[in-house]
């Protein structure tokens, strides 16, 4: 599903709809929802300690010139996974390069939703 479908949810029931997002999307881009979902799914699976993740998130958010929220979220997640040696910096780099290469050759961004 697309995160953009949220826009239509609030008005389905007209005046009787309960307050939901108060007009604001939860995620501003598909990758934000994926980064969020990955962290929670890892926690649910017992693969990461959420408090270790939160400590990293606090450090990212509190840093000078902190990035946008979900970019901090993604960086914190990457750090925890690297520390736990669940992924390596090399394979992350390699996969990023390969995905960037694929996307550069395909201007139809439908694949951003990979799971659709």
């Amino acid at each position, binding site marked *: 599903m697309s995160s953009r479908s949220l826009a239509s949810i609030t008005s389905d029931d007209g*005046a009787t709809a309960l307050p939901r997002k108060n007009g604001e999307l939860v995620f501003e881009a598909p990758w934000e929802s994926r980064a969020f979902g*990955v962290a929670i799914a890892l926690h649910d699976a017992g693969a990461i300690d959420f408090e270790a993740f939160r400590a990293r998130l606090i450090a990212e958010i*509190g840093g000078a010139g902190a990035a946008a929220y979900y970019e901090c979220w993604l960086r914190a997640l990457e750090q925890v996974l690297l520390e736990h040696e669940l992924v390596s910096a090399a394979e992350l780099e390699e996969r990023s390069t390969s995905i960037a290469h694929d996307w550069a050759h395909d201007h139809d961004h439908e694949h951003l939703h*990979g*799971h659709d």
Partner: protein
Amino acid sequence: MSVDHDHVHDDVAVRAAALEALLVEKGLISTDAIDAVVDLYENDIGPQNGARVVARAWVDEAYRDRLRQNGTAAIAELGYGGFEGDTMVVVENTPEVHNIIVCTLCSCYPWPVLGLPPSWYKSPAYRARVVAEPRAVLAEFGLELADHVEVRVWDSTAEVRYLVLPMRPQGTEGLAEEELATLVTRDSMVGTGVPLQPVAAA
């Protein structure tokens, strides 16, 4: 959008996709599990949950007492609880006290009853200023409080999450619980707003 902006956006989207692909390949998580989490927080968990808690408290004095004494247990009576809401404290607005919640360190927020926080809640400006000058921040949200009203700011932590119990609007004596719930906005449960007024016809 500028080209630079698109480039930065794509770069972080690439990293997120790479991370997801690797974790799925390693069998640590499944794509279905990620989809389910996203769907849950986009569609099922949100301020409508908290609104039901507030409306129940407005019509049921015994429930309101339980909510004051043990927020976690009283909220669980309505079926809400769990991750990022393990210990809930409900702070009640009165004619003399207005409560407002923040997470000064990051973005701690009572997910089971309010869903995920709006972007302004996560902003450095809100996190810093609501503690230093809460009245000025509330005024920017369009909420002017009388001078005699005490403002209490509650800083959420990993352990404790707060929910504001706003005051029931005047003129709602005849409304049923379900109708009352529609008046309860997200901002009124964060403390940056107050509930909606019922439409005259109601």
